[in-house]
């Protein structure tokens, strides 16, 4: 299908009107009859033994319904390594450890009760730096693992690595080598809608939880496990997802606060709402994983990459969540960004008493791409080759298989590179250290670029990477769609609406996406890895195909009779009307029908309204007859990919890969150290544009998060305590910073596996932004900052250092 009715154009989002009217309901807006409020008491130390918890005063406060600690409630294990528990016993390992929780009739009373809980601690030596934590004799964050086995080191038993070719031989054969160590800080996802949930049990002990989650079904699995641990074996958790108020990875794991809400709900017999305010969001929710990356790359005399060595060190914080698994995605750029024959990748992940980390858009890719793409510029400079040309020579190409085993179907990297070169005015601007016209030589301009590879056809990180989708037709031609993934603002509902309309043949207004609910929607692993539209739309196409088959099969008997009625009705109005002499029953074979824009037509009949029936009428006709039927279809789409062997870093983890290049033009004020962005460009191989408006939204949004990552954002902490838990000192980009043009170019490579040819685009916008800017800064002032964010203080210090 190359001539689409709906796909590829600019569409208003179906959820737009409710959002602008303020009618959309987020967890913040939901209430349940009898609902009470939960609040959590967090640890006063980064590392300490819990000596005593006295809850007696809190329990006596009027309005308090329950006070829970790790000592009076069932133990609920949390995290994929099960190294965390919802309410802590024995010791606390970070400032955000949950030591007690209260349910009360108002948030104020709950707050007051929290203050009345008295905890006595015996502080322990703590460790806040991963290098310190790896040393012999460092305080152990965990003394035993989830199975009670003694643990001897803070280095986590997670094995991620890759080795291909012969690094040493390649090193010896290299003409040029560049090396560098780079770091990225923890940053906060900073959803505008904070975290929260409502947990409620019915009188059969089944749980319903309204959760701010991106993984309703994996969350259900976690909650069911918790129910077992609570002695409620065989009982079920139903997960309902309201409008999220942003995700960006915060919803990819289950959190202690959710299990605490469940425990409080069961103890009190009332629905319990826990809602984080902004301070709690910053101080007690898991931020993005930080990393230090050492990279060495080499090339031959022609600038062809010979080898790449990457070592990553991660300060994990006190417990395992998805931050610890970033290396699974780091493998992508490490092994497959540009063509490199000899690669070594290793990662060390270390427990400390800092806050632990979660997923965030890009999930390890931006972290390594920062180091890799800065290093590419360095290596190009050493080789005396232009940085664009260097990238072009080593560019990925369609049809290749990378050292990790990624099967590249379509790849628009070369087009993205050449587009960026043109957009930036690269040849005129690069290497000129241009002074801003009319200014004394205190402001210098430069350009830089950086590429990205990301999964574009989901990313297999779990034993199933499937998504189900159900379509149910009603008597009026409405298509009720049930999909188990999550709309978090990215435009998933819009994509599904258009895909269903396009592949089934109805109007978008006839398509209704239902709320994500584990009770009604088919299973989905989660909305992550930029997979939402790719998976849902592919599943929609399959289900639509099945549904069209059923519709056209039934049409063989229904259609002729309905057309006869049309003709009779017309005759009554206009007795002179004579239809053409066609034996409708004879041509009414399923292969001759079509459904488009909600109208069923038959090939061989003229394009007149009497020769057509709308889908609603058809559906009523098959429903209200002897042996009637209602039509529905279901698809369970599993993409062609494999679960990699992470310790060897091998496996084709996605059905396809998204490529792109971002360019930056900056002006650096040498007096103040400020980096001002003059222009950004983003060329992205998207496979196919589904909805132009939402695609732009994803790319702009990701790019601006990348700007924040590059220049402003940092979770600052000292001895485990977060120092900037608020927007006053955590610097999110505001509209005022984004005062430069952003050129977007979408390269349509028409992917084999993508729905209508489309690839996943949720995360790529954030991946190469920081190095594009960092490389532009270097071009402007000849100074390379290795540690994000690139602050004026760092730039000035680097300029001063170069003077002396």
């Amino acid at each position, binding site marked *: 299908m190359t001539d689409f009715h709906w796909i590829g154009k600019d569409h208003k989002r179906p959820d737009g009107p409710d959002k602008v009217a303020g009618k959309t309901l987020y967890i913040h807006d939901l209430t349940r009859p009898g609902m009470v409020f939960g609040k959590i008491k967090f640890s006063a130390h980064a590392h300490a033994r819990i000596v005593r918890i006295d809850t007696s005063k809190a329990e006596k406060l009027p309005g308090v319904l329950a006070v829970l600690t790790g000592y009076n409630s069932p133990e609920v294990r949390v995290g994929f390594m099960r190294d965390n528990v919802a309410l802590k016993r024995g010791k606390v390992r970070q400032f955000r450890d949950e030591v007690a929780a209260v349910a009360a009739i108002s948030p104020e009373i709950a707050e007051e009760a929290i203050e009345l809980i008295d905890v006595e601690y015996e502080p322990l030596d703590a460790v806040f730096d991963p290098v310190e934590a790896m040393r012999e004799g460092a305080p152990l964050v965990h003394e035993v693992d989830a199975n009670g086995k003694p643990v001897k080191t803070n280095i986590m038993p997670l094995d991620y690595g890759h080795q291909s070719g012969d690094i040493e031989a390649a090193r010896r054969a290299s003409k040029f080598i560049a090396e560098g160590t780079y770091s990225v800080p923890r940053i906060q996802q900073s959803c505008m809608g904070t975290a929260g949930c409502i947990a409620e049990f019915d009188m059969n002990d089944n749980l319903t939880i309204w959760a701010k989650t991106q993984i309703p079904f994996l969350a259900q699995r976690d909650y069911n496990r918790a129910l077992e641990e609570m002695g409620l074996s065989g009982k079920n958790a139903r997960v309902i997802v309201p409008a999220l108020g942003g995700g960006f990875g915060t919803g990819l794991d289950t959190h202690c606060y959710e299990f605490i809400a469940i425990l409080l709900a069961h103890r009190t017999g009332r629905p319990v709402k826990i809602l984080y305010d902004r301070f709690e969001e910053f101080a007690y929710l898991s931020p993005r994983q930080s990393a230090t990356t050492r990279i060495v790359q080499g090339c031959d005399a022609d600038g062809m990459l010979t080898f790449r060595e990457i070592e990553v060190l991660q300060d994990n914080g006190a417990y395992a969540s998805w931050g610890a698994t970033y290396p699974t995605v780091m493998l992508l750029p490490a092994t497959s960004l540009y063509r490199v024959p000899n690669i070594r990748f290793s990662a060390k992940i270390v427990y400390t008493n800092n806050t632990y980390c979660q997923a965030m858009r890009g999930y390890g890719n931006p972290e390594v791409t920062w180091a890799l793409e800065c290093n590419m510029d360095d290596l190009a400079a050493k080789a005396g080759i232009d940085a664009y040309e260097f990238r072009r020579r080593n560019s990925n190409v369609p049809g290749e298989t990378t050292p990790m085993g990624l099967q590249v179907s379509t790849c628009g990297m070369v087009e993205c590179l050449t587009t960026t070169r043109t957009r930036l005015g690269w040849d005129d601007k690069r290497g000129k250290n241009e002074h801003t016209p009319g200014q004394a030589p205190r402001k210098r301009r430069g350009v830089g670029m950086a590429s990205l590879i990301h999964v574009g056809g989901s990313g297999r990180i779990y034993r199933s990477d499937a998504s189900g989708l159900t379509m149910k037709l009603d008597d009026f031609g409405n298509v009720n769609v049930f999909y188990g993934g999550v709309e978090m603002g990215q435009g998933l509902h819009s994509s599904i609406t258009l895909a269903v309309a396009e592949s089934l043949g109805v109007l978008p207004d006839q398509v209704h996406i239902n709320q994500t609910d584990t009770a009604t929607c088919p299973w989905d692993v989660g909305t992550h890895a930029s997979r939402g539209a790719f998976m849902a739309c592919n599943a929609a196409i399959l289900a639509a195909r099945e549904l069209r088959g059923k519709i056209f099969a039934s049409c063989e008997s229904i259609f002729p009779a309905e057309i006869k009625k049309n003709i009779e009705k017309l005759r009554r109005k206009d007795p002179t009307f004579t239809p053409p002499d066609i034996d409708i029953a004879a041509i009414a074979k399923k292969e001759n029908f079509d459904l488009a824009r909600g109208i069923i037509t038959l090939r061989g009949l003229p394009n007149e309204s009497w020769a057509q029936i709308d889908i609603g009428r058809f559906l009523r006709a098959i429903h209200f007859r002897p042996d009637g039927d209602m039509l529905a279809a279901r698809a369970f789409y599993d993409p062609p990919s494999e679960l990699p062997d992470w310790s060897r870093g091998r496996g084709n983890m996605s059905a396809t890969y998204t490529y792109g290049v971002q360019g930056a033009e900056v002006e650096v004020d040498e007096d103040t150290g400020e980096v001002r962005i003059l222009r950004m460009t983003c060329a992205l191989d998207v496979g196919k544009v589904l909805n132009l408006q939402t695609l732009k939204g994803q790319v702009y949004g990701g790019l601006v998060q990348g700007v924040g990552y590059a220049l402003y954002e940092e979770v600052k902490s000292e001895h485990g305590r977060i120092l900037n838990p608020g927007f006053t*000192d955590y610097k999110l980009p505001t509209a*005022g910073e984004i005062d430069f043009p952003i050129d977007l170019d979408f390269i349509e490579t028409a992917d084999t596996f993508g729905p209508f040819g489309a690839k996943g685009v949720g995360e790529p916008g954030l991946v190469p932004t920081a190095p594009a800017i960092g490389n532009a800064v270097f071009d402007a002032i000849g100074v390379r900052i290795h540690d994000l964010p690139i602050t004026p203080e760092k730039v000035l210090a680097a300029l001063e250092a170069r003077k002396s």
Partner: protein
Amino acid sequence: MTSYEYHRPKTLEEALKLKASIAGARWLAGGTDLLVQFNKRSKPLPPAVISLRNIDELCAIDARDGGLRIGSMVSLTDIAAHPAIRDGFSALTESIRLFASEQIRNVCTLGGNLCNASPAADCAPPLLVHDARIELQSQGGTRFVELPNFFRGPGQTAIEAGEVLAAVWLSHPRAGCRSAFMKKGRTQMDVAVASVAVRVEMDGDVCRSARVAAGAVAPLPLRLPEVEAILEGARISNDLVSRARQAASRAVSPITDIRSTETYRRHIVGVFVERALSSLTGGGRVSDAAEVQI
């Protein structure tokens, strides 16, 4: 108890009586500092809050005695829109333009901003270079304090128990006076890393009088007399502006905190003094005109 008494007196007399009679009561101006504290529960709640928002005599700007009297409860938005402020007090107008957001400016007041006495208070440097005087009222009468003497330390002012900041007085600027304000934060919303206000009165290319003030680079917003001394009576030149820059950097005592470093703040103060002077006098190095509004 998680609440407090809330009083809404209609006259200054009523307000002062309440303040005198309730120990620990706090004045409430725009609420953009106090309510943040309350929302965050960063300090214990006071027993009572006395709102100054409904007292007409605190909400007026008028010309008086050769100067301008700005009632302490006039919103920043209204101050910046007043023709007399726009025309004569550019540094103040610019500092308000860059102050937080419009939502904040619509309720924030000079009174509140000054009484909060943050070392980084954006309004302070412009008011310092405009020789502002503070009018304090109590049940015992009225007294005036020159602004430099009003700030005593971070969060500390010269206000005594039972007193309220009733107005800020500015003298009308002489012809030939021009002022500028610059601040360094990433955006207006940021607490300033450093801010500078400069006012000069030029006679040709000779500087007849100069006022230079800085914020966020010492425990209080402060005037920089060392820099003023270099400028007053001197002919503007690249060299003079350069010396003023260096003197400014030496004169301040910034700290390193989570927002910035001592080195950087010291450096930026100098850069701002240089740039403000350059744009106001046309002397010194050409700087980015867009950063300084006259």
